[in-house]
């Protein structure tokens, strides 16, 4: 029997209209609301289907700030006809000029709360930055269904002082340009079950020194990304973040203004990723611009020093931060971080008793200086990934071999995987590779990724393959 053939006959045309309502509603709920609404003209089958969607995505893509009214009418109409009692995902991205428009935004958010919204995503761009921002309606704070809140623009609200807010909120994502400090401070103390906090924004250096106190016992993931105000480095920041979160598992920090981070308590962290320090790319960019202006070498040096110099104490903040997260299992450090760690190094490397996976950049200015210290402090390390920085302007410090009797214990006992990324073929790199192969007794895999700019790759490969390996089982791979 030819079932295929029968299938063809039964199916015929227009499969989509014959899908059951609930599947079609699922499909329409995956679309931006305007696209879902558009399907109303397809045929009478579709006329009212969109009114059952449980996700509402309003993205105002007017090219300018005029004609808010049409957008406003559309949203009002959709909300008026919306039949779903439980909104999963409510996303609103629009531009406002007048107070009346801002108040509309508030009403729409109220609607979402009334309809048991689970996830709210709000971005309200104001015509003039800072003077009109979204005001969150009071009802949001007591909303029992709200689990995820994304605030992609500045916002204000009157947070009640006493009660704890956001009873069910697990994820909070904030992106600010003009933070209201008191408000953030309250917010960081008002989420009783928050697990995931992301803070993105610009912190300008003005006279007030701010301390952000993040005290959240339920927090599992914390991401902080601080950007430079209009791309200028205005010196090391005076602001401070104090993190007290005994259940924290994941920590990601990106910060180019060297805010003072204090991580309290002995967190058994899973994974920490740090990109903290003056942005090396920005420095490079500046020095190139000075070159183009044909400023004399000495003068250029002076200017660079004035603009970007970071004192040893300031750089040591990064080492202190590292000391606060030393119980992590996985650690990843960028070239900016390594630069600061090197600058502020005080011969006092923390120990990393749980560290099994270390990924670090060998940056061009200080080179290998800290690698031996890291290896000696990480007695259980299993995976080591070294990323070579291609910036060759500074001469990198030579790799200092460990005395043979003091090969770090992790190399003798635990390190199974080593990966060298972006190898350029320098003598120092070859020296390290030779050392690692000679001393890593339980090594299983050694991978090398040779950079595109390296000359005679074939020679490098041959040379690496010829080095004696103490671990017979070790396999060398070229990526």
């Amino acid at each position: 029997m030819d079932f295929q053939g029968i299938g063809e006959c039964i199916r015929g045309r227009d499969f989509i209209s014959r899908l059951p309502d609930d599947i079609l509603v699922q499909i329409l709920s995956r679309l931006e609301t305007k696209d879902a609404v558009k399907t109303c003209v397809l045929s009478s089958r579709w006329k009212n289907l969109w009114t059952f969607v449980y996700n509402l995505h309003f993205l105002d893509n007017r090219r300018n700030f005029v004609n808010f009214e049409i957008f406003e009418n559309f949203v009002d109409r959709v909300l008026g006809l919306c039949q779903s009692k439980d909104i999963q995902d409510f996303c609103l991205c629009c531009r406002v000029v007048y107070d009346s428009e801002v108040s509309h935004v508030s009403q729409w958010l109220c609607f979402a709360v009334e309809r048991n919204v689970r996830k709210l995503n709000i971005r309200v761009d104001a015509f003039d930055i800072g003077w009109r921002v979204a005001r969150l309606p009071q009802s949001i704070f007591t909303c029992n269904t709200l689990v995820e809140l994304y605030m992609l623009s500045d916002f204000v609200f009157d947070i009640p002082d006493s009660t704890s807010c956001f009873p069910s909120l697990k994820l909070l994502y904030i992106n600010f340009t003009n933070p209201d400090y008191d408000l953030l401070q309250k917010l960081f103390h008002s989420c009783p079950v928050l697990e995931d906090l992301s803070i993105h924004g610009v912190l300008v250096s003005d006279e007030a020194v701010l301390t952000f106190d993040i005290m959240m016992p339920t927090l599992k993931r914390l991401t902080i990304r601080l950007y430079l105000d209009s791309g200028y480095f205005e010196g090391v920041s005076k602001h401070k973040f104090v993190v007290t979160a005994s259940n924290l598992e994941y920590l990601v920090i990106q910060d180019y203004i060297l805010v003072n981070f204090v991580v309290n308590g002995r967190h058994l962290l899973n994974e920490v990723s740090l990109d903290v320090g003056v942005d090396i790319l920005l420095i490079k960019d500046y020095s190139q611009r000075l070159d183009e202006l044909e400023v004399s070498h000495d003068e250029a040096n002076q200017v660079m020093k004035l603009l970007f110099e970071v004192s040893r104490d300031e750089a040591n903040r990064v080492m202190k931060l590292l000391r606060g997260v030393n119980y992590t299992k996985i650690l990843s450090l960028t070239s900016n971080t390594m630069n600061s760690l090197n600058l502020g190094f005080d011969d006092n490397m923390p120990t990393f008793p749980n560290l099994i996976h270390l990924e670090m950049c060998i940056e061009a200015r200080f080179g290998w200086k800290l690698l031996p210290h890291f290896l000696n402090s990480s007695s259980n390390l299993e995976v080591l990934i070294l990323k070579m920085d291609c910036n060759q302007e500074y001469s990198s410090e030579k790799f200092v071999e460990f005395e043979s009797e003091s090969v770090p214990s992790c190399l003798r006992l635990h390190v199974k995987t080593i990966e060298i990324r972006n190898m350029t073929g320098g003598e120092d790199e070859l020296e390290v590779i030779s050392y690692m192969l000679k001393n890593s007794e339980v090594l299983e895999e050694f991978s090398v990724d040779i950079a595109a700019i390296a000359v005679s790759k074939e020679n490098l490969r041959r040379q690496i393959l010829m080095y004696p390996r103490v671990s017979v089982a070790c396999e060398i791979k070229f990526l």
Partner: protein
Amino acid sequence: MSTAATADASSSGDTTEGSVRLLTLQSEDGEVFEVKETIATQSVTIKGMVDDDCATSTIPVCNVTGRTLAMVIEWWNKHEIGAVSNEKELKEWESQFDTIDDKSDRDDVYDLLMAANYLNIPTLLDCCTSAVAEAIKGKSTDEMREFFDIKSDFDEKEEDALRKENQWAFEN
């Protein structure tokens, strides 16, 4: 979209290991499949039957052909916890379901959607509804009608009225 599938799930693994129970599924057109219980219970419907002890004899899977059921079982095998260690690999395999390019894809998606709905398989339902949504995205209503072969039963006046009511959706 691939239409080939390992219909015989029992050949793929460790069915001889004592504790793994096999369920017998029979498609609408009489094809019989033996599937590990741990895999088939990705279907909420089948899980319910197992939990209620109703899965002792052959389970009829009405409204699903053998060809579609084989695809569903392939999906299950790939999504069994621990079956594909590499998240990227899984995404790559899944991506064959992402696009609806020609007529046969459309038919497969229809069959899979109906099967995923009937058997209540959230991952497969998500993937297929998202594929259809992707196909709708960015299309004008005329293009949608053409792509999905939808015949309008509105007259011009009715359609104009609908467009007017939802002006912003059509103008932006």
